[in-house]
């Protein structure tokens, strides 16, 4: 009863369990990202482009051409904003991974969070210091419940969360973009004849304002940093984190020993959903200002790669997200030589491929090392 379906997630849990912290935890992602850049460069060469020129543009796009100039601030801010949003979805996926669930549904939770933020941001109009926290709490609850539903189905009915979260993505996208945004909460309900698609703008009191006039960087970076600290402390210090880790690393042993694993999974998934939702809210209250007609930036799916490259930890995910935030911001600049900004996905994809192989690679290294060591021991024993 309540046994999990031995499908997709089994693998990732075993893989996660088999990890032990070591220096290579930090080296593997760096090497993987490096390989991502190399493979992407080969692709550029193969299609007749100069990777050096491409990467120079990417770097300038990310950090500007020289320190202190106008563009630098603007560009660096762009990378940080993207990084903040990625961090939040990355943490969402990471928290779910740590309880043994694969949250492909970050995208759906992100969209739910975005629409709730757009609605509350439009309805509430107090002062920013009250408005924004209230909106974020509302978003966290709704998106959290949306995600927890998948965990609840898994716990109660044994339905594979991979499938339910995929389905919940599509349900969210269709209900939000093909109903709410075009129907009951369309801008034309409030401003007849508006030329824009999407929802009305949120109130000024709900906006996350740019921190520096020249850049789009806003307080979402601080929200992301708070989330990183929250997740870090959750796993390092708290009882709940301990329960989440025990459940994720061996649900059976945790349950046998008396941890309420079902409840733990649902709570962890609630936290995951809340983080993705807040990520969506940050985009709406920050850069977008409202829910546009079509809004699928894909940050939910990117959260999966951020978490994987970051080794499913809070700090790792943060750095992976910041890094790829900059890559994404920079890649926009590559448009100048006819390379679409999704170029960042290529680097991300290849890097993830190497992360996927790391157990194998690491195991080979380990095995060779051990064999040498044991071989030596045996020989010395004989002497």
């Amino acid at each position, binding site marked *: *009863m309540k046994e999990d379906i031995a499908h997709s997630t089994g693998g990732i849990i075993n893989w996660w*369990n*088999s*990890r*032990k912290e070591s220096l290579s935890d930090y080296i593997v992602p760096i090497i993987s990202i490096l390989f991502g850049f190399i493979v992407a460069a080969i692709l550029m060469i193969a299609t007749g482009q100069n990777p050096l020129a491409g990467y120079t543009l990417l770097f300038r796009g990310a950090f500007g051409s020289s320190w202190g100039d106008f563009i630098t601030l603007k560009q660096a801010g762009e990378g940080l904003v993207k990084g903040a949003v990625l961090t939040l979805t990355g943490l969402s996926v990471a928290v779910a991974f740590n309880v043994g669930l694969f949250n492909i549904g970050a995208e759906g939770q992100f969209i739910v969070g975005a629409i709730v933020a757009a609605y509350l941001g439009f309805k509430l109009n107090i002062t920013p210091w009250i408005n924004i926290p209230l909106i974020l709490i509302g978003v966290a609850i709704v998106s959290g419940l949306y995600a927890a539903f998948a965990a609840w189905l898994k716990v109660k009915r044994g339905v594979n969360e991979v499938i339910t979260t995929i389905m919940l993505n599509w349900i969210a996208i269709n209900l939000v973009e093909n109903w709410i945004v075009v129907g009951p909460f369309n801008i034309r309900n409030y401003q007849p004849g508006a030329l824009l698609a999407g929802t009305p703008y949120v109130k000024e009191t709900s906006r996350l304002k740019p921190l520096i006039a020249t850049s789009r960087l806003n307080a979402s970076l601080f929200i992301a940093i708070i989330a990183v600290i929250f997740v870090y402390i959750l796993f390092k*210090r*708290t*009882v*709940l984190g*301990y*329960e989440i*880790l*025990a459940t994720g*690393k*061996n649900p*059976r*042993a*945790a*349950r*046998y*020993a*008396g*941890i*309420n694993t079902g409840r733990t999974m649902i709570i962890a998934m609630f936290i995951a959903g809340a983080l993705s939702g807040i990520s969506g809210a940050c985009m709406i209250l920050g850069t977008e200002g409202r829910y546009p007609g079509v809004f699928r930036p894909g940050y939910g799916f990117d959260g999966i790669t951020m978490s994987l490259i970051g080794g499913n930890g809070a700090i790792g995910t943060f750095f992976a997200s910041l890094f790829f935030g900059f890559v994404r911001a920079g890649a926009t600049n590559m448009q100048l030589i006819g390379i679409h900004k999704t170029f960042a996905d290529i680097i991300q994809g290849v890097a993830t491929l190497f992360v996927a192989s790391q157990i194998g690679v690491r195991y080979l290294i*380990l*095995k060779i090392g*051990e*064999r040498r060591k*044991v*071989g030596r021991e*045996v020989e010395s024993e004989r002497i």
Partner: protein
Amino acid sequence: MAYAVELKNIKKVFPGTVANDNISLEVEQGEVFAIVGENGAGKTTLMNILYGLYEPDAGEIYIFGKKVENNSPRKAIKLGIGMVHQHFMLIPKFTVYENIVLGEEFVKNGILLDRNKAREEVKRVSQLYGLEVDPDEKVENLPVGIQQRVEVVKVLFRGAEILILDEPTAVLTPQETKDLFKTIRSLKESGKTVIFISHKLKEVLEIADRIAVLKNGKLKGIENARETDERKLARLMVGRDVIFEVPKREKKPQDVILEVKNLVIMGDKGIPAVKGISFYLRKYEILGFAGVEGNGQRELVEALTGLRPVKEGKIIIKGKELTEFDPWVLRRQGVAHIPEDRRDRGLVLPFSVSHNLFIGRQREGFFSGRLFLRKDNIDSFSKQKVEEYDIRPHNPELVVDSLSGGNQQKVVVAREVSYEPDILVASQPTRGLDVGATEFVHEKLIEQRDAGRAVVLISFELDEIMRLSDRIAVLYGGEIVGELSAEEVTEEELGLLMLGLKRYEKREVPA
């Protein structure tokens, strides 16, 4: 004449251990050759090398005088070697004949699987050796004894001349073991060579012609079965004299603490696995459940520890009837549980020893406040437990996965005993442990009993049940077919009960 099997200087190293260290031995054709040793002595590794599953790091193998190069299972099969593994290599969802012909399928019209031919051949081989099996039954529906028979047929179907049986009696009742021995003798008569791996010395002395003893990967000696005895083998195996008895103080059972009435529990397949059993348990007593695996033991344990819902009947703990059935609820009622598979169910392997010592108790005030863990208390607690239970190495921060099996089990026992439970449910507490660790666990269980706790012991090892229990209940087909006091029971009688050939009327709960 050439030897059936000749191993020369075989060596195999696994990360961290030398599994086989320079082992040489010869097996004559037509003999039953036993290899004994404790768990981890290297018996199975050696046989997996012979069967081509592992490649030796050094050494040579000769089969019927011919040197084997680049060994693989496929090659070993061709050379006439067949292996019955300790954990059966059967696919539960497949039928008997599918399992038997896999890899050597009969084909018609070029590609079609010839199922009729397969059935006929399976029948023919099984009749030839008197090993009846139903080719069309799914393996998952077969009792363990029959599954083993399927394994033997599978090997014979491939024309094996040399049969390796890895711990074949571990899962059998005494009667099934007798049948197996009959089969082995008839195989021997028809000229087959049998290599029999075991750690049960009595059995080995009964069936084998010669006995090789392994210890820590090294060959300690080869004895003629007729010229040796249990004590001598045990000394070779363990390296010291082994005490076959556990000192047990007189029993002084007191008030009933657990009562089970007409308990019905559903199995995984939705049919009752436990069919209306009743029993009671008193303080200062160990109640052993004997029985062949798969007769409701797992379901009973899971129900007693809140892991499986109860369909009908009552569980009464300290006079209060249970209404909720969840592990965390049962724990609060004073039930602790040493589960049967420590790696899978007892421990969170990537956690440190320290973090494994309080799973389930993390919300107690000693271990945590409302939100945060109390690190100092956790450290002092785990340091104390590591000393008390001599969990080696003496470092509570080590990842528990890196400990030996015996020390891992000590972590589980330490945790469960530290609950100071009223009732301790121990399920196969010594499976896979070496003699030393087994002795330790046995001592702890007796200690718990003597401290006034009630212990439920489930084991498939009759010796263990008989050695530790004050009373023995026998499970067969989900029912208790007999409940006896440990002093008055014999192994033969238990065997008959375990096979369902005999049953007693239920005894009443004492007033």
